[in-house]
């Protein structure tokens, strides 16, 4: 598996990307917040100083005198340059951070400045009429606040923001370091979590691989049952178990079929070889051919049964099913088997009431014939077989009761298994291949019906076929 296709890698990449975005955004937000609050603090300080200086300057009275005496250059000269000591201390250039202030006259010429004020500070533009509050601006590394008096003088206070910029830079370095640490921790933790979470998947893949290599008994056996993957593992384990059983059954079936075919084959081969090993009398040749023929017919019956079984195994269509009367089918089958019952001196009793079911007439006839042949075979001369058909609300029911030796309870569960023979002393040459009942059950199940058996040793056997009306 290429790393780019690995689920773990994909989860890790998405997880990493998401983590990067979150960490970056929160870093930026933290930095911005810090920067804004610093700036706000500086602005507050600047405005305080603007207000203090403004209070200390009797600009208003000077403006009033100017109004009264007419415009004169002397107005500005009368502006007080000396601030009270407390106010002046606020602008001490030795302090850190150092504040400064500059005052411009209405004509734009400087009228006063503090000792630490940098040179070349451009006079602020007069704001639009009506705005009388203090205004902030950033000029290079300086942050400044200015205010225009009603007559038009301008007072500006400012300071360098270098200490804050340096602190912010340091702060951002801290944030980046922290972000990298969080990212690393998150990626590592994510890797660990995905590894842990996907561990059952690896176990599942490994088990599936072992099974595909032929170790059918392999299971995932995930100890953690509650998680989704644990559930999946449990479901898969159950599926694997079913598959193994089906596979074992199939293997057994194939082995049994091969075994059943091998015996008549042996008979044919050994008889043919004997025939070729020298001159034989006509009588012995006849005997050899006869044995070959018997064996070949047996193989023919067996292959027919196998084909029949395969046909019913494969068919799933229910389209060609039609309503048919069970009583009619049973009556027809009985006529077909009449010679066999006469030969074996078995009496047949029929209690047939019309019972309509839905299905393939051929398939249902096959069931009846198989069960009847089976009953005839197991019923001793002088015995009887009773066939009944009846209907209940949902089913058409066919019952066949023989007076044979019965079947021991231990054999009943396996009776419908393929190649199963209840009586081991019965030779394969006289009995069938052990497929008749298996075929009957397959057909019945194909019709969503069932076959059940009840038997008492020494008294006989009752087989019941239930087929749905619809």
């Amino acid at each position, binding site marked *: 598996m290429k790393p780019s296709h690995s689920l773990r890698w994909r989860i890790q990449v998405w997880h990493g990307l998401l983590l990067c975005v979150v960490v970056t955004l929160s870093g930026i937000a933290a930095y911005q917040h810090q920067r804004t609050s610093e700036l706000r603090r500086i602005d507050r300080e600047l405005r305080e100083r603007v207000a203090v200086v403004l209070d200390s300057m009797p600009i208003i009275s000077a403006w009033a005198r100017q109004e009264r005496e007419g415009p004169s250059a002397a107005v500005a000269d009368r502006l007080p340059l000396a601030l009270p000591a407390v106010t002046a201390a606020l602008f001490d250039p030795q302090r850190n951070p150092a504040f400064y202030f500059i005052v411009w006259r209405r004509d734009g010429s400087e009228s006063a400045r503090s000792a630490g004020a940098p040179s070349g500070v451009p006079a602020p533009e007069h704001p639009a009429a009506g705005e009388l509050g203090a205004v902030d601006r950033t000029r290079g590394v300086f942050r400044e606040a200015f205010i225009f008096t009603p007559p038009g003088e301008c007072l500006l206070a400012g300071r360098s923001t270098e200490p804050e910029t340096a602190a912010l830079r340091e702060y951002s370095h801290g944030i980046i370091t922290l972000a990298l640490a969080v990212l690393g921790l998150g990626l590592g933790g994510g890797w660990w979590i995905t590894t842990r979470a996907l561990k059952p998947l690896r176990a599942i893949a490994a088990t599936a691989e072992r099974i595909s290599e032929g170790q059918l008994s392999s299971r995932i056996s995930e100890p953690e049952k509650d998680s989704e993957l644990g559930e999946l593992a449990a479901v898969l384990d159950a599926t694997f178990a079913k598959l193994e059983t089906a596979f074992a059954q199939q293997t057994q079936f194939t082995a049994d079929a*091969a075994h059943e075919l*091998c*015996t008549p084959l042996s*008979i044919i*081969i*050994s*008889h043919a070889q004997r025939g070729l*090993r020298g001159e034989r009398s006509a009588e012995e040749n006849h005997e050899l051919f006869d044995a070959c023929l018997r064996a070949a017919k047996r193989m023919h019956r067996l292959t027919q049964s196998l084909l029949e079984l395969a046909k019913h195994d494969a068919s799933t269509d229910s389209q060609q099913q039609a309503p048919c009367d069970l009583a009619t089918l049973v009556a027809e089958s009985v006529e077909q088997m009449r010679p066999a019952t006469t030969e074996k001196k078995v009496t047949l009793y029929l209690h047939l009431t019309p019972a309509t079911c839905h299905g393939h007439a051929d398939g249902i006839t096959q069931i009846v014939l198989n069960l009847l042949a089976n009953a005839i075979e197991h019923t001793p001369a002088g015995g009887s077989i009773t066939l009944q058909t009846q209907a209940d609300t949902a089913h058409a029911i066919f019952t066949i009761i023989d007076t044979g030796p019965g079947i021991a309870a231990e054999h009943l569960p396996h009776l419908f298994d393929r190649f199963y023979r209840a009586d*081991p002393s019965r*030779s394969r040459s006289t009995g069938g291949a052990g497929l008749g009942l298996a075929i009957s059950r397959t057909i019945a199940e194909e019709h969503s019906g069932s076959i059940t058996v009840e038997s008492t040793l020494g008294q006989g056997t009752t087989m019941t076929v239930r087929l749905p009306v619809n």
Partner: protein
Amino acid sequence: MRILVVEDEPDLLRILARTLREEGYAVDEAADGEDGLFKAEGVAYDAIILDVMLPVMDGWEMLRRLRQTKRTPVLMLTARIKTADRVRGLDAGADDYLPKPYDTDELLARLRALIRRTGSVATTSMSIADVSIDFAARKVTRGGSELPLTLREYTLLEYLAQHRGRLVSRTELYEHLYDESSDTLSNLLDVIVSNLRKKIGHELITTRRGHGYCIE
């Protein structure tokens, strides 16, 4: 050589017995495991051909019980050809394993090998004075020319040759050369021995009156 064949298929049992008899073996037949075990325990067979799928008692069970008292060579014959089945058969005490459908020639060759392996003579041919016996081809030559022996004569000579140097009792000969259905008249052996002596020379087989025969 006396062989027991245990096989539940009548056709197969019949053809096996016939073929083996034609090869000069004395053959007893059993159609199920119980009968087979009863016969195998009662008679000293030179080999048993045993089918696995048998009614009443299967081949494995019969073999297991037989092995508690006897170690007669057993050739398992079965349609179960899976390795696991073969291993199981051999582990249960079978000496050889032949899957069905088998080739008659292979079956006969394996049977000869089995008897040779467990018998006292391991070679496939033997020379006694100017007589040489080829056990595989079942031919006896004297001075380079083939002797026309009957099947009974040959099997008697073969048995004595394979137990060369040992006194073989008349009872033992009857047990190994005749099957259960044979009509064994007491002087039948004497007739065969005398006919055999005419063909291979009188001094080869010595008679210990009242005890049996021996090839020195």
